[in-house]
């Protein structure tokens, strides 16, 4: 029951897959159903279509763009509302002081036991650290048990120890049983306020948020080019693209195989197919594909991007290591080969004066890239055989 509530709650929080506002959401209007065999429904549909498009402005145009600051080669979002919007619709970015979702503020309020702490929310980081503590405890208890068992076998066990052994035998298996969940709530620790914390609080209220949301270059460009929901420090789309390329490699005009471009092509590809794409650095690959997003499921696929230039980008040792790491976390390893246009063709499009719409330029440039996927699986013949 609790699980279902939790799921419903998640569905509510993360209702939007992308940070775009729809007419149906904003005005509560929707186009009627269209029945191909019923001409009246066509007519009705057309009327409504014209109505919607003339009477109501496109909602996205009325929504303010999210402000992204570009400082020290980092894309930052500091406004709390924008952070929530980008995280909750599409899981963009990462909290700089958190594992992924920016939860520093909540955690600090929790830790310092401040007044705002009503909901008693438990962040993922706290769950993890709790679980690790429990695991450590289990391990020490188990080693105690094993020591005593050894003594018992040798026959030099005192009466006290025998009782202790009996107790441990009952306790230890329960610590690791499948139903065991670390408990929260009733262990009210004493609040420790460090010297640094004093700068943050004023009359029991947190006044500073040290955390901001950091976006990857590919995320920023996707939000700009594909969704047009951000404004990046007065940069035009072309300038932004160029800055992103410069992050990877310093050249007067972008190289056709610039890692940023290849990454972006793949990122856009999977975003278009409805996947939630996040950085794969923690598993040593380029991107991770989530079915809906991190709170719902684990990532299913690890993406490694390889330019299709006939050169060997990763040697066997690296491939073996990556595949092994990905295998142990039960994900599938996908090699994505990216075909790219010639440098001349790229430069032509890049320098062309014909485009009035910058979006069209990048549409044409990105159209000349192609992706091919190969699923790679580590297979040890001697261990897989029955």
């Amino acid at each position, binding site marked *: 029951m609790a699980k279902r509530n939790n799921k419903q709650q998640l569905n509510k929080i993360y209702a939007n897959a992308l940070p775009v506002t729809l007419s149906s959401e904003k005005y509560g209007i929707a186009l009627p159903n269209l029945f191909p065999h019923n001409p009246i429904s066509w007519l009705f549909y057309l009327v409504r279509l014209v109505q919607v498009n003339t009477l109501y402005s496109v909602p996205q145009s009325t929504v303010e763009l999210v402000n992204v600051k570009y400082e020290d080669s980092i894309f930052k979002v500091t406004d709390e509302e924008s952070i929530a919007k980008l995280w909750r619709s599409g899981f963009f970015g990462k909290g700089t002081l958190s594992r992924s979702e920016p939860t520093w503020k909540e955690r600090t309020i929790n830790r310092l036991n401040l007044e705002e702490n009503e909901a008693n929310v438990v962040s993922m980081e706290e769950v993890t650290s709790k679980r*690790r503590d429990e695991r450590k405890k289990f391990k020490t208890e188990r080693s105690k048990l094993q020591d005593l068992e050894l003594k018992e076998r040798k026959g030099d066990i005192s009466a006290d120890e025998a009782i202790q052994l009996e107790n441990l035998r009952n306790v230890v298996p329960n610590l690791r049983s499948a139903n065991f969940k670390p408990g929260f709530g009733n262990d009210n620790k004493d609040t420790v306020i460090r010297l640094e914390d004093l700068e943050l609080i004023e009359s029991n209220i947190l006044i500073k948020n040290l955390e901001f949301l950091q976006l990857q270059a590919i995320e920023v460009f996707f939000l700009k080019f594909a969704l047009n929901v951000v404004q990046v420090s007065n940069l035009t789309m072309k300038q932004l693209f160029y800055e992103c390329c410069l992050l990877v490699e310093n050249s007067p005009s972008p190289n056709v195989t610039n890692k940023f471009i290849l990454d972006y092509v793949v990122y856009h590809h999977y975003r278009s197919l409805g996947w939630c794409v996040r950085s794969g650095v923690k598993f*040593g690959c380029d991107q991770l594909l989530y079915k809906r997003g991190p709170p719902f499921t684990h990532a299913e696929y690890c993406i490694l991007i390889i330019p299709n230039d006939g050169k060997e980008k990763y040697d066997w*040792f*690296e491939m073996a290591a*990556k595949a*092994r*790491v990905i295998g*142990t976390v039960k994900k599938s390893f996908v090699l994505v080969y990216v075909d790219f246009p010639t440098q001349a063709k790229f430069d032509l499009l890049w320098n062309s004066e014909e485009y009035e719409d910058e979006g069209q330029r990048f549409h044409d440039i990105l159209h000349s890239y192609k992706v091919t996927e190969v699923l790679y699986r580590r297979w040890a013949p001697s261990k897989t055989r029955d």
Partner: protein
Amino acid sequence: MIEATGGSIDIEESFKAVEIDSTSIQSNQQVILDTTEIPKILLPLISRNGQPEVLIFNVEDIKRLRDKYGILGILIGTLAQYPQQNFFLSVPLKLFIWEVIWLVESGYAQLIDQVNYRLDKAKELQSKGKLQNNNVIVMTKKDPNSKSASQLESREANFIVTPNTDSHKYSKDYRTICADDYEVSLKDYLKSYIESTSLSQNQVRSYYQNFKYLKKQGFFINPGLKFGGDLVLYPGDPLRFHSYSIVKFNMVDLQDFVVGGRLATSVKKNIVIIGDVDESEEDGSTEEVNDEFIQSLAKEPKKMSFSIEWSGFG
């Protein structure tokens, strides 16, 4: 060819061979203890001009490499009794390049051109009339009528048994005659090796020196591809100890750190990165493998190593 027709046939020759082996090993050990002059181990070089490969068939040599020098190599042959498993394997022992260089450089072994050596030896033996069939196989024929007395029947086998490789016992007489004449220099070996791989000379030197550095610390070393590294370190013989380190040469990529740390920790090891303290050594960028290069192998530049562990896993 032996055909078993009626009744079971025991080939005692094989048992004899085993006995000979064990005694010879004992005597061999005594030799090592007694004399200061230890005969160099012969490293048979196969495919000398293509992709050179050192394959050792002599069990005595394999034992000596392991016990005395801590050189493991990899067994790559199939066990005749258990052809389906591939966990425990049999001779030949394949040595990898760093082991070969180390053995030769330290003066424990010498490379020989196995193909020509064997051909010429056979010719020589033939001309001296030493190559003759003196293998006698004794067969016991079980007679169903008389259980107590088994009939012994000796007859000449119609196949030639030659000793596996040049075990010291058999080969002492002609070893001195031939083996040295077929010695392949380290230079020639490395020349054809470098031609057949993607490694540059500087890499070969630097990696070898990494190996040597670790060997000097007393580690037993295996190749590390199965853990995605270059080497795997054991504190002692791998049959008795688990390894606790994966070694990677010159790691620079952030992804490599993550992958290395994660992988190593998930198999209860740590990852060791090792590199030169002074990178300016890379002057000898000549394409040719010359004597200078061989000499530079023996140098001992300063090495630096770091170990990485993933602390995230409980």
